[in-house]
């Protein structure tokens, strides 16, 4: 199923605007992640799609039908929650059977479907237990089974992995992605974890303060963030976003930043000539350590595959830098810095991408 949001706005009682003029199209079978910090409106958006909240303005379409006034029960949605939201008074079997019972399916069919889904998720040995007797990972599987068993046309997932241990989380993450591809069900997934978003999504929609910042593939978001918010939010360790002034001297253009001066490459110079104050963005892997003076190594963490360093600029700013593991540096050592300009970006002082 295709989902389309058209100028969707949600204002809560008391005037809090949780989502503003959201336009988003989710293609059939697509796995889309709504990503943003807490309070950015992503869960509100999800609950509007579920039909729990009604949009204050705008329209939500399932395929070509406006569903604004459709009750949650009539939307054929499977939903998974961070808290799992299993029914504590029902056994695992009853939990999974619940949506089917509400559909008034015959008993034998319910039984067959429950067992089928249970074996698919490897929880067939837990059917007689109650949720409180299960581990977090097992509860998560039951919640998934309950969402899958009704064969929904849309999956909604609200941070379903956040309560799991780090190790299980990575396992379930891979499994979830595989499952979604196998079932081919359109999925809208909410998280604040950018690594999770990058690993799961076909496309990511980044939200901040109720406003959509950028929609794109993980690759687009990582390599060409459209504004400083997306640039800073995606990627770990976080990108360096540096205050810079553009200065022109003898036809040549320079970035004056970090207490030093960096010549701007030609393609940058063409578009930056009329700018004064900008943000220069460089991901940690796009900062190059050279022989030179002015910058000092502030700290180094050896991470096995690579090393992560903080480098202190002449003006005191700390730059985040990732380096090949074999790169030998010592704390306190004086170095020079340059950038991989093919990958860096420059933003207006208001935050929009220039180049």
């Amino acid at each position, binding site marked *: 199923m295709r989902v389309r949001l058209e100028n969707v706005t949600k204002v809560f009682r008391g005037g809090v605007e949780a989502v503003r003029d959201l336009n988003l199209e989710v293609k059939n079978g697509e796995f889309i992640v709504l990503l943003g910090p807490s309070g950015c409106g992503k869960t509100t958006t999800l609950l509007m799609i579920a039909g729990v909240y009604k949009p204050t303005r705008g329209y939500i379409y399932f395929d070509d039908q406006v569903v604004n006034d459709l009750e949650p029960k009539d939307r054929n949605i499977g939903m998974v*929650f961070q808290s799992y939201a299993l029914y504590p008074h029902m056994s695992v079997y009853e939990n999974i059977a*619940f949506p089917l019972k*509400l559909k008034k399916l015959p008993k034998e069919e319910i039984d067959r479907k429950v067992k089928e889904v249970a074996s698919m998720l490897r929880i067939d040995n837990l059917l007689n237990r109650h949720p409180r007797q299960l581990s977090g990972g097992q509860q998560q599987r039951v919640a998934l089974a309950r969402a899958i068993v009704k064969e929904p046309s849309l999956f909604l997932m609200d941070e379903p992995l956040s309560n799991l241990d780090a190790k299980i989380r990575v396992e379930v993450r891979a499994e979830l992605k595989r499952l979604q591809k196998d079932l081919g069900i359109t999925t809208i997934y909410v998280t604040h974890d950018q690594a999770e978003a990058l690993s799961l999504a076909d496309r990511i929609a980044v939200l901040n303060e109720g406003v959509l910042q950028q929609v794109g593939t993980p690759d687009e978001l990582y390599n060409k963030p459209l504004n400083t918010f997306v640039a800073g939010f995606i990627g770990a360790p976080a990108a360096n976003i540096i205050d810079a002034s553009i200065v022109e001297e003898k036809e040549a253009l320079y970035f004056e930043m970090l207490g030093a001066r960096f010549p701007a490459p030609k393609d940058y110079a063409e578009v930056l000539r009329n700018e004064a104050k900008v943000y220069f963005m460089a991901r940690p892997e796009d900062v190059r350590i050279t022989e030179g003076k002015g910058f000092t190594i502030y700290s180094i963490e050896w991470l096995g595959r690579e090393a992560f360093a903080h480098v202190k600029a002449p003006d005191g700013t700390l730059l985040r830098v990732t380096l090949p593991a074999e790169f030998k540096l010592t704390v306190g050592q004086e170095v020079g810095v340059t950038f991989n300009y093919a990958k860096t970006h420059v933003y207006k002082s208001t935050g929009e991408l220039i180049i």
Partner: protein
Amino acid sequence: MSLSSSEVVIMVKTRTILLYLVAVIVALVPLIPLGLLFALAFSEHPIHIKGFTLANFEFLKTGVLFPNDPRYSKLYPNVYTSAMNTLLLALGNMLFVTLISSMAGYVISRYSFRGRSALLGTFLVIHGVPASVLLIALYYILKVTGLLNTLLGVVLAKIAVDLPLGVWVLKGFYDGIPWDTEIAALVDGAGRFGAFFRVMLPLVLPGVFSIALFSFLSGWGEFVFIYTFIQTSTNWTMSMLIQSLHTSEMGALNLALIAALSVFYLIPVLVLFVFGEKYLVKVTIGGVKG
């Protein structure tokens, strides 16, 4: 210095014994008067505990008190009539308080509407008002509505007084259920009512049970409203009947008979305690399990 295992066993044993000793002493406080009551109920002498007889329970056969003194007997209703009235009051109170508060508690917990917090505050204040303060107002209302001297009038007044606590307690139980659980039910295909009856209500069942028990016992033990609003003795409840025997001006006071009636009056309470204890413990310790 470490203790040998036998020393540890002795210490644990001493502690257990001490614990039981304290428990017995605490239990004696209510048990002694209750024991005296039971002894008196089976006593041959009307005032002192002496011997053992079932004579005081003669009324159980026909429900008639003082069958040997027709003039005196006429002053009192049949015991079974009073018992039935008591049961009706208790069940009526239980039924309506439980029914209304299990739904009102849900609405107040889940929906935000104008005047919600004012309503909650009022509930607390109303619950704090002693029922005897309301007697004049209630008397007037019952008189105007023609419900004075009827059991229905007392039931309604009782419900009004017991309801705030029920709503308040059950609202707390509903508050304890995460929103996600309810949203899950809605998305799974339940309507508002389906989500309420299939998911929310079963999850607050311990609370509903405790409110049912509380309001049953509250109705069963009611005295002030009966005393004030009921004149006709056929509309009396057990509490009123027993009280009236204390203040009788004619003949000698028969304490043994009063004790026997009291034991009869106590039976449902004891039964409920024995069967309900298991659930009540669940309520106080377990609550809603997540």
